[in-house]
């Protein structure tokens, strides 16, 4: 079985440029929710001085990861921020001082067991750096008695156009990625690690293949550049041929999927003990003069990145993430989070008006999940919950392939998200 996919332009203009550090911002805004899941409670208050890497937010809830200060400075305010998902969360405003020093808390973790390893990963604040931000320690906290994981997939597909932050990580932190894979393999006792990379990044494939050759149980596979190759279920299928059943996790088919930048971070953390406080971000778009990758402290405001991006004209559209799945935002004060892998800035890219569906079936042939977007749209317009469920709208991961290929320019993937929301609303009404 071959999954449907689409061809999209790659536009990876920043792929050959070395990552640079952004100038230390005057202030950062660190949201107490860095990803989906439970928000943290702030552990510092206004007036407190914080050091780089200091724990500033945590929670007892499982579905979360602690938050650390990305800078040295003074907490000057507790505010609220609207994140790209439309949720409002508490956030700490930290004004930076020129002398940046690491917190005394920082020390490489001592690991003697699987439990130690998982605890260290939690303590590191690690979440999936590919964009979805699933807390890493939860991926690792399966019960080895009942769940057998035999494959660790290191996701280096990076199938979205423009974004090259993972590509640069694979080139600049190749050793760390291999080491991260090795450590995870060791502590979790996983047979093999497969680094999966789209074939449009031959330099990354070559470099990592060379390094993996000296390791046992680590290999590199080249995947065809076929959107959405990097989606979790899709990459599991591409690498292992296994099908993750609807509503189940990758562990159900013996796999853990980890973004390559996350693997590099884990290696880094085990060695240095510096938690997740900065990340690589691609800055690109048609108003950006010199597309590039920046290392930014978590909590850097979009406006600081826009300044660093050297834009030729003010953008009218700003996207966090890629052009296929990324989310637009309107507040230039919006801070970056652990999951922000890219900031794209566009101007004068008018969206075409949509016209009637001509039933060409392109959306059906585009959907990697085997759905029928045009039928789903019709069912949603009729508010037919039973039919939406029957057509498995829940399987839609909003990759946007259907909308992309639609000659009538219909917002098919958007309708699927509205449909999912509508089903949930109806279910809660019944209760």
């Amino acid at each position, binding site marked *: 079985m071959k999954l449907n996919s689409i061809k999209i332009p790659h536009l990876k203009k920043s792929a050959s440029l070395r990552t640079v550090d952004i100038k230390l911002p005057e202030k950062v805004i660190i949201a107490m929710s860095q990803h989906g899941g439970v928000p943290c409670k702030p552990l510092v208050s206004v007036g407190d001085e914080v050091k780089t890497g200091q724990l500033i937010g945590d929670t007892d809830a499982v579905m979360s990861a602690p938050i650390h200060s990305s800078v040295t400075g003074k907490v000057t305010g507790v505010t609220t921020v609207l994140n790209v998902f439309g949720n409002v969360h508490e956030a700490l405003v930290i004004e930076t001082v020129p002398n940046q020093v690491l917190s005394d808390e920082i020390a490489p973790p001592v690991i003697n067991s699987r439990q130690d390893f998982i605890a260290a990963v939690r303590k590191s604040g690690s979440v999936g750096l590919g964009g979805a931000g699933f807390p890493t320690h939860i991926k690792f906290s399966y019960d080895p008695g009942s769940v057998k994981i035999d494959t660790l997939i290191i996701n280096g597909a990076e199938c979205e*156009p423009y974004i090259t932050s993972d590509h640069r990580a694979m080139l600049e932190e190749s050793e760390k990625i291999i080491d991260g894979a090795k450590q995870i393999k060791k502590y979790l006792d996983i047979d093999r690690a497969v680094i999966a990379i789209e074939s449009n990044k031959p330099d990354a494939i070559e470099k990592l293949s060379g390094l993996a050759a000296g390791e046992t149980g680590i290999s590199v596979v080249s995947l065809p550049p076929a959107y959405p190759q990097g989606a979790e*279920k899709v990459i599991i*299928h591409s690498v292992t041929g296994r*099908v993750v*059943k*609807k509503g*189940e996790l990758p562990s159900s088919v013996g796999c853990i999927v980890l973004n390559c930048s996350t693997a590099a971070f884990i290696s880094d953390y085990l060695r240095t003990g510096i938690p997740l406080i900065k990340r690589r971000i691609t800055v690109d778009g048609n108003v950006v003069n010199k597309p590039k990758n920046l290392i930014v402290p978590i909590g850097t405001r979009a*406006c600081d990145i826009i300044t660093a991006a050297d834009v030729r004209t003010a*953008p*009218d*559209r*700003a*996207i966090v*993430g890629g*052009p*296929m*799945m*990324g989310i*637009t*935002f*309107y*507040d*230039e004060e919006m801070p970056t989070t652990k999951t922000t892998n890219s900031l794209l800035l*566009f*101007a004068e*890219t008018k*969206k*075409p008006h949509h*016209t*009637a*569906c*001509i*039933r*060409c*079936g392109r959306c*059906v*042939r585009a959907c990697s*999940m*085997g*759905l*029928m977007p*045009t*039928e789903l749209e019709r069912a949603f317009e009729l508010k037919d919950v*039973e*039919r939406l469920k*029957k057509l*498995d709208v829940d*399987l839609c991961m*909003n990759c*946007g392939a259907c*909308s*992309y*290929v639609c*000659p*009538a*320019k219909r*917002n098919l*993937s*958007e309708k699927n*998200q509205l449909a999912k929301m509508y089903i949930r609303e109806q279910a809660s009404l019944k209760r």
Partner: protein
Amino acid sequence: MSQLLIEPSPHIRCTLTTQKVMLNVLIALLPAVIAGTWLFGLRALVLVVLCATFCVLSEWLFNKITKRKQTISDLSAVVTGVLLGLNLPPSLPIYMAAIGCFAAIVVVKQFFGGIGQNFANPAITARIVLMLSFGRYMTTWSAPIVGSLTSPDAVSSATPLAAPDVMPSYLDMFLGIRAGCIGETCIAALLLGGLYLIVRGLIDPVTPVAFIGTVALCALVGGHDVPMQLMSGGLVLGAFFMATDYSTTPLTRRGKLIFGVGCGLITSAIRFFGVYPEGVSFSILIMNIITPLIDRYVRPQPFGAKVKKTPRKNREAVQ
């Protein structure tokens, strides 16, 4: 700073539009139009152009009168017009063609909600309407006047399907030098256009292959002259340009296969057992009607979806 706009993802789209799809279909039909002109003279060209004009005019007027947004710029009415024109005998009176255009656009397409909503192929249905209304004119064929563009008067001739004893050679059949509708006779031109649509990824080859293949198989089994069966009537025109219409045929590849095989079986049944010499139009129309049923049962398998067992008594409500 300027205002930032909020919109749902994806933020990039492919460059294909409905208009470009239709434009490509017109490009694909061009060889057949040229061949028709070469074979049957300028009157054939005039008829095709007038059909396109009448169709666009019908859609424009309908939208105007019913106060709808104008849709003529999507070029689908032009495609319908050209297709209908190519499906008419070269000598058909103009007013009859106009009636056909009205039926195609207003009755078959717009009454059902316009582009994408019609369940029957407008050009095919209009051709059938004209056949039933003006049977004599629709079966009066002029002999080809290859290359001379104008002819003093149309000479009545029979099509190979209607009069199997006056068979042209295979080469003449392939080039279209036989009596028939304007656009259906020149197989070479139709294959060229069909190939163009396949190469551009605009039609799935499964439909024409299944359609023509089924007719070939039936002809073989029935002991008929296979190449002659494939090249006569409107089979190639229908298989590449009408049985591949998006709105009126199944969405999925398996659905298209069923559609093509169904068309082939019905065409063969009508040709070999029916009272009409040709069955392509009827077969496509009948399969158009069955299409919603095919689309209901022939679906892609969702990725990792659990096989649902719905109790029989609840089945109706769920579907």
